[in-house]
């Protein structure tokens, strides 16, 4: 119980400090709205926020699913084939030198202003952490297990599916946990570059109209969304890996 209450207490303390700063300095609301004002907007604009949050959530979830799927299979391909490692690994590392932000305009040009350019952004941002974490884990199977499998006469792909992949699942899980936090960043960048829906679009819109309260409310919804996603993935990973050391 106290574990659940502690973060709430921290949030309350933070809100109190924030309220104090606003009250003491008399900073105008269009620059920094008081938390009470943000809470009020959160309530009065709940329908608007929910509508845009649903769009962003869909982009994030689809991007996360596709990115995890592609990251998984690419890692298995890399782990299975030294040839693929030689060709693809340097390309993947090189691709990380290009900031995903820089790709957002071209993705919008290619995929349009709708859902898919944001899904692509989320996918691009999470592919590498998932792929990298899973690939590293696949290459670190305890040698004694592999030796045992060899003495038993195990086939390459059977050893892959029955020993290397299950042994590497904790690595995949840590990639996925990172991805849960990164994916919303991708979607929001995509929405900033060009969108007519989503929390990122709403934040830009509110900012442009000096509605800082709505901006903060949207930011809060995004943060809660990300935290919920992370918690859900964390719980799913813990559940899947339960019973191991």
């Amino acid at each position, binding site marked *: 119980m106290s574990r659940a209450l502690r973060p709430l207490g921290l949030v309350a303390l933070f809100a109190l400090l924030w309220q104090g700063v606003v009250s003491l300095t008399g900073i105008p609301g269009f620059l920094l709205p008081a938390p009470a004002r943000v809470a009020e907007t959160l309530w009065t604009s709940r329908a608007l926020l929910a509508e845009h949050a649903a769009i962003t959530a869909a982009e994030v979830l689809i991007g996360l699913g596709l990115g995890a799927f592609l990251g998984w299979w690419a890692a298995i391909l890399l782990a299975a084939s030294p040839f693929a490692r030689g060709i693809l690994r340097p390309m993947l590392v090189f691709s990380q030198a290009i900031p995903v932000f820089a790709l957002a305009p071209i993705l919008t040009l290619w995929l349009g202003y709708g859902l898919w350019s944001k899904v692509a952004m989320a996918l691009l941002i999470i592919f590498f952490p998932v792929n990298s974490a899973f690939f590293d884990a696949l290459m670190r199977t305890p040698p004694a297990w592999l030796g*045992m499998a060899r003495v038993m006469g195990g086939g390459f792909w059977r050893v892959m599916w029955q020993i290397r992949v299950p042994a590497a699942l904790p690595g995949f899980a840590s990639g996925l946990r990172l991805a849960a936090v990164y994916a919303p960043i991708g979607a929001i960048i995509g929405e900033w570059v060009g969108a007519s829906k989503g929390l990122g679009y709403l934040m830009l819109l509110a900012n442009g109209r000096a509605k800082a309260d709505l901006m903060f409310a949207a930011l809060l919804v995004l943060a809660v969304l990300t935290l919920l996603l992370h918690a859900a993935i964390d719980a799913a990973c813990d559940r899947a890996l339960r019973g191991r050391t």
Partner: protein
Amino acid sequence: MTPPPGLFLDGTAAIGGSPVFGPVRFEVPPGQWTCLLGASGVGKSTVLRLFAGLDDGITFGGSFGASDHAPLHGRVALMAQEDLLLPWRDVLGNVTLGAHLRGAAPDMAAARHILARVGLADHAQKKPNALSGGQRQRAALARTLLEDRPVVLLDEPFSALDARTRAQVQELSATLLQGRTVLHVTHDPAEAARLGHHILHMHSGGTEPLPAPATPTPRPFDAPATLELQAALHRRLMAAA
């Protein structure tokens, strides 16, 4: 199971340019239990890796293999100091791992029979983490037995167990591996005195057979003859160091 072959080794081994052992020359009689006794670092495990076909990185000069000169691959099972149980598979799944890795249908009846013989019948559905150290090593023994290979290589499989559990698993192994060619690497004179039909002493100068009585194994750990043999083996180990 085909009649077990004997083993022979004659040569020198090096890893990464630095010598591990040799020249070493010995024979392991078929169908019997041979202990390869020696201090740590004399290359006992390297010998086992050669016979197991896990020779990556080992440069071997000479010859080794089965006394019938047929390939050893597919005729060898290996049991190591670590139980190597997969934590995501239950005991039954671990015991039948070999068949799964070969794409064969596991013989579930045989697996359950063997689990009963090692005293794990009630633990078949448990994950390895729910087992004690002794139970885990008995599960590893069951997995080795289900492989049903004529040659069994043991790499100090009992050394991590407490004295009481070790004695129990040793007895179980000696009984259940009867009739197979067993090459058992150990640094423990007490273990060799209990289990070896034959005892080879491996040291930096090579290997030499040590006398072992023709009594049935496992020999009682507290019999005067066993204790005497243990002391004699211990003296040989001390003299070599």
